[in-house]
């Protein structure tokens, strides 16, 4: 078994630098790598390019990095929950590349799995396809979208073992598995870190080969963005 455990978030982030490209898992605030984000804020890295489906909210998630103007460029599919984001984007301080959600998923997974690019119908005929190669297959038009490249990927899982195997929970899975192995170094933070053999090999969502560093995170807030309930 190849051991991937690191002591803490500081060791997990060893080597991060200004100007790097980072992938960050999560959908909305669900499944975001809270510990890694906090550490990125603390390290006060600058000029980051962040690939993440959303940009957090004003005071949580990637919003914390935006607030400190650590992000130079954001690649996302939806950023509607973040007023500071909109302000920085409309004022031109922040470079933004909006990408269809399925395309974002496909570009991460392509990087993970060694596909150089994918053909997707999403965005054909829209400004997303401008300047991109398009092509017809069986009478339908597709856009060629290249795999992402990143220096670090930060993901959050529910359980993990020392071999780096990951299991996600519910819809907190989302982009997290797709970003594993899509960057030079993948850092996984987990709610519960267990010994090898404690996870059923049949239930592992992401094999440890895609993860370079793993640690058990602390103080998860797991904030709910839209608390919707019904009455009993």
């Amino acid at each position, binding site marked *: 078994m190849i051991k991937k455990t690191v002591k803490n978030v500081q060791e997990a982030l060893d080597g991060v630098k200004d100007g790097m490209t980072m992938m960050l898992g999560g959908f909305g605030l669900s499944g975001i790598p809270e510990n890694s984000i906090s550490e990125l804020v603390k390290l006060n890295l600058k000029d980051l390019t962040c690939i993440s489906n959303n940009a957090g909210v004003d005071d949580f998630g990637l919003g914390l990095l935006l607030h400190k103007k650590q992000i130079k460029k954001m690649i996302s599919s939806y950023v509607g929950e973040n007023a500071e984001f909109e302000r920085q984007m409309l004022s031109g301080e922040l470079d933004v590349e909006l990408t269809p959600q399925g395309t*974002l998923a496909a570009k991460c997974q392509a990087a993970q799995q060694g596909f150089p690019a994918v053909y997707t119908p999403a965005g054909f005929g829209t400004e997303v396809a401008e300047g991109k190669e398009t092509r017809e297959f069986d009478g339908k038009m597709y856009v060629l979208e290249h795999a992402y490249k990143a220096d670090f990927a930060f993901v959050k899982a529910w359980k993990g073992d020392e071999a780096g195997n990951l299991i996600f929970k519910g819809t907190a899975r989302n982009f997290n598995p797709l970003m594993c192995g899509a960057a030079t170094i993948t850092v996984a933070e987990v709610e519960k870190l267990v010994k090898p053999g404690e996870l059923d090999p049949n239930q592992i969502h992401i094999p440890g080969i895609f993860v370079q560093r793993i640690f058990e995170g602390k103080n998860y807030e797991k904030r709910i963005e839209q608390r919707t309930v019904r009455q009993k």
Partner: protein
Amino acid sequence: MALDKNGIAQRIAQEVQDGYYVNLGIGIPTLVANFVRDDINVEFQSENGILGMGPFPFDGEEDADLINAGKQTITALPGASFFDSAMSFGMIRGKHVDLTILGAMEVAENGDIANWKIPGKMVKGMGGAMDLVASAENIIVAMMHTNRAGESKLLKRCSLPLTGVGCVTKIVTELAVIEVTDKGFKLLERAPGVSVEDIRKATEGTLIVEGDIPEMNLN
């Protein structure tokens, strides 16, 4: 009398057939789930990674790890499954989802749709909408017939940046049910008490009216 949002959702629910997998967008589309007949079997997909989405949780049972694409806390029904975003859009791109219902800022008579950006003013992003409209074969738009300024949202040509081209099959508004055809917006039904003339006035694009247009039956 023009419908309210629930009325639009109620009418759209009639389009949902037994055995359908359905993706519901944010806003009015989310309400459709409340009106689907309970004698048919339907599963709701949310593109952030669940099939078999259930109602909101009971107070106190919310789970931050269980949300829908609108970031609302939800529940999972028996037979549900969770999956990653690639698998989710694999379902969508692979045409396994039978019906997509979403909102729009504009729809053109050729089926183009715009719903993600107002240049210089509002840029929230397309989320999964571009994937959905590029892949689905059965797309119903739920929206108001006109915008807040009273201008028609059913246009000859979209003025806003497009989300997808020639993809919308049907539109349900507070005034009418309209099918998108090769020749333009074909009026299928009127909201109760709404006249063809009312609809014509609110529709900038070509409105095709053939024969008597029945009122919606919302019972």
